[in-house]
């Protein structure tokens, strides 16, 4: 019954706790770390012989931490990291404003300034909105997605759980200057002035938005690159053209001020280190986990080791464009692919806040999304003649505190 070693059906994961005891479900899974680790505490996933793993020296500690579980003072690892997932900025090169090299490259580094800081991107988007351009919008994004918006909060000191993401009682989403991040998300919502971005389905709508030239850029994960290419093909690109024209780069930096309109955008470029911060992103580490219900633990481990080996990871990169979690593979791919290099370095520098590896993480998504919907809708309420609830930082802070309380309730009320 559980003979298939690995299945394409990544949606079968959800039921390990219910299916596993009855002998159903795959032996080995490839999934995001939060999903695999959801099952670790209750032992549905086997711990791996960490010290015997070939990949041990190659994978950075932050990626291992994504699969770490603490059992009676001892750290065990329940997943074999394969690749890193985090938000990247997507754009189509031929859609860039014609004048970007003259008007939007203050530091003359060959990178459009509006892709270097969010302050500049805001100005460009505003300019496109007021004066038009090749596209209808500058930057659009699914503003209600916790995964992509979490970075705004993390950059200013917020975190998901305390004690290295292990302590579910310490929810840190309102800590530090998280309110700055919330404020900027609201600013974006007002700037974008588009109700579609206040909906989960925007991530699907985004493919068409980009390919049909309605927006210049968006932030999403590298694994959906093929979706953009498909949509571009439907909009007149040939496969090769689309491949060459679609770009994926690191996300812009955020202003220290926590206000997208406070600084002059040129200053943020020329005095970048002083006025801006590297944007932290929420990320995930996809990897292999072995079901505790497998009849063949040894074979499963051998398979996972094989699939996480250098050659296989390189193959996966060639076929799917993933960013390897292995240093050797990342270095090799990184020679030609900046995206991979940047993403791997961010992981190595712990610039990516990897999703917690405890079960409670399952309770953050829905409340976070509700909060983001509230804040972004609120940005449009004024113009729609409705009451405004998040005009001040104090109100935003209260909203964040309520969010934390909600998550806390969801985790602890019924336990």
């Amino acid at each position, binding site marked *: 019954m559980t003979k298939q070693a690995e299945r394409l059906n990544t949606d079968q994961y959800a039921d390990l706790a219910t299916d596993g005891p009855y002998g159903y479900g795959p032996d080995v899974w490839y999934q995001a770390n939060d999903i695999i680790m959801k099952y670790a505490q*209750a032992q549905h996933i086997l711990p791996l012989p960490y010290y015997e793993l070939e990949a041990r020296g190659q994978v950075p500690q932050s990626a291992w931490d994504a699969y770490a579980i603490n059992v009676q003072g001892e750290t065990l690892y329940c997943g074999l990291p394969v690749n890193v997932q985090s938000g990247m900025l997507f754009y189509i090169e031929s859609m860039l404003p014609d004048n970007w090299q003259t008007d939007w490259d203050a530091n003359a580094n060959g990178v459009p300034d509006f892709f270097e800081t969010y302050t500049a991107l805001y100005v460009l988007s505003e300019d496109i909105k007021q004066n038009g351009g090749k596209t209808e919008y500058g930057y659009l994004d699914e503003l209600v997605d916790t995964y992509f918006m979490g970075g705004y909060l993390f950059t200013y000191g917020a975190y998901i759980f305390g004690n290295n993401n292990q302590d579910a009682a310490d929810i840190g989403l309102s800590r530090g200057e998280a309110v700055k991040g919330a404020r900027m998300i609201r600013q974006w919502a007002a700037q974008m002035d588009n109700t*579609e971005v206040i909906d989960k389905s925007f991530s699907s709508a985004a493919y068409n938005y980009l390919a049909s030239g309605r927006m210049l850029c968006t932030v999403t994960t590298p694994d959906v690159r093929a979706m953009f290419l498909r949509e571009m093909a439907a909009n007149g690109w040939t496969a090769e053209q689309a491949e060459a024209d679609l770009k994926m780069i690191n996300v812009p930096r955020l202003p220290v001020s926590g206000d997208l309109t406070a600084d002059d955008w040129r200053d943020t470029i020329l005095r970048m280190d002083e006025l801006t911060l590297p944007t932290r992103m929420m990320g995930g580490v996809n990897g292999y986990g072995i079901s505790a219900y497998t009849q063949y633990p040894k074979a499963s481990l051998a398979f996972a080791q094989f699939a996480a080996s250098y050659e296989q990871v390189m193959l996966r990169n060639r076929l799917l464009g993933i960013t390897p979690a292995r240093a050797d593979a990342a270095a090799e791919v990184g020679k030609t692919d900046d995206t991979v290099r940047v993403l791997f370095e961010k992981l190595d520098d712990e610039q990516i806040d990897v999703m917690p590896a405890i079960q409670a993480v399952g309770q953050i998504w829905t409340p976070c999304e509700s909060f983001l919907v509230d804040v972004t809708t609120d940005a449009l309420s004024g113009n729609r003649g409705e009451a405004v609830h998040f005009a001040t930082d104090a109100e935003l802070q209260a909203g964040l505190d309520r969010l934390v309380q909600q998550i806390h309730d969801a985790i602890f009320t019924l336990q």
Partner: protein
Amino acid sequence: MTVNNTQKKRARSPSVLTKLAAFAVWSPLPVKLSAMIWGLGQLIYGQITKGLMLLAAFAGVLWFFISRGFRDIAGFFTLGTVRENLWLGVPGDNSMRMLILGLFSLFALGFAFTVWYTNVKDAAFTARRVERGKKPRSFRESAAALADGKFHAAALTVPVIGVAIFSILPIVFMILIAFTNMGGEIVHPALAEWSLSAWNKILSFGKVGATFVKILGWNAEWAIASTAVNFFGGLLLALLLNKKNVRGSKIWRAFPIIAYAVPGFISMLGFKFMFSQSGPVNQMLTASGRGAIFFLSNVESAKWWARGIGLFVYAWISTPSIMLMTTGILSNISADLYEAASIDGATPFKQFTKITLPFVVFSLTPVLISQFVGNFNNFGIFFFLRGGLQSNYADYFLASDTDLLINWLYNLSVNNNYYSIGAAISLMIFVITGVCSLAVYVNSKAYKSEDTFR
């Protein structure tokens, strides 16, 4: 009437005992043997096939209970004693499985008792025949008698077993879950135990209780509104299509039938796409410069939009069936009634309120009651239109402002594993809907008159 019944019962109970004693005194040896070992009496009377079948059934029952049945029943009470360690490969108990297997064994025990009882009765029947000097029935005669005299019992066996396993057993299981602490942290391999913790949490009126009350209010509004919309919508449709001046009513009727025939989940998902933030309705609104509306989004302003759309989608899906029903009912009203009313000078409106409406309402009462219960527990509409949302205002706990109780308990028990709380809530839903509808139904004229045997 009830008083009478209890008196009767009280009067009867000693006579049952005396009957039993008399039976024990009267019964010849083969009957007594049958009572101990199924089929033995039948064998003695020469009913070989029947006797062997019963004997085989007896062996099967014994084998089942010795090999696992009694252990399962014990497990039903303990809910497990050894915790499984999956990492070290130490096998252990699974509380949920033990609960259901124990329950199954109890059901099987009941079934075995029924077979035993039938077997003794059958032996006694044969003994009486023999006493009167008749020959015991052959297998063929017995089978024929079963197919004839006991036709109802033979015919209902399979349906009853099917319903017992696939409907009653799960429901009893669910009721029992409400009295354990299963869910949350307590899922396999953790062991559960019998407990009232779920009830404490609901009745202590913390977050759970407050949300329950809030959702219950909207749930009642929804059940009433949707049943009313369905009834009047269907009635109006039927009246419209039945108008004398409508030509080609078959063609007109085809449109609602399409809506009726399209599988419900397709309609609901279709409407969800239609009203989504990037969907065509909003695209048209934006294009016409009116600004998009948050129809189904997770914002406070969407509350009544979403509820309204839910009602509309529900009406779209189900009024056609009421329309068809009403069409059938209307054709049952004798035309003479209307003629007589016309001659008496009653206006069409008066004819409608005095003849049509009462007749339709009377005929539809049972359907409306069951629809009311169905609507109270209408899981699909808001699951498909707005599943997976949580409202961020007014302290909804793991629920959204359009969720009905049934959606909420789905969130609790399926999405968040809070099994015992979910079960307790569904038990409360059952009590609410059950008491209401059963009271109405049992007292309705339709039920009383229909219960008389024809």
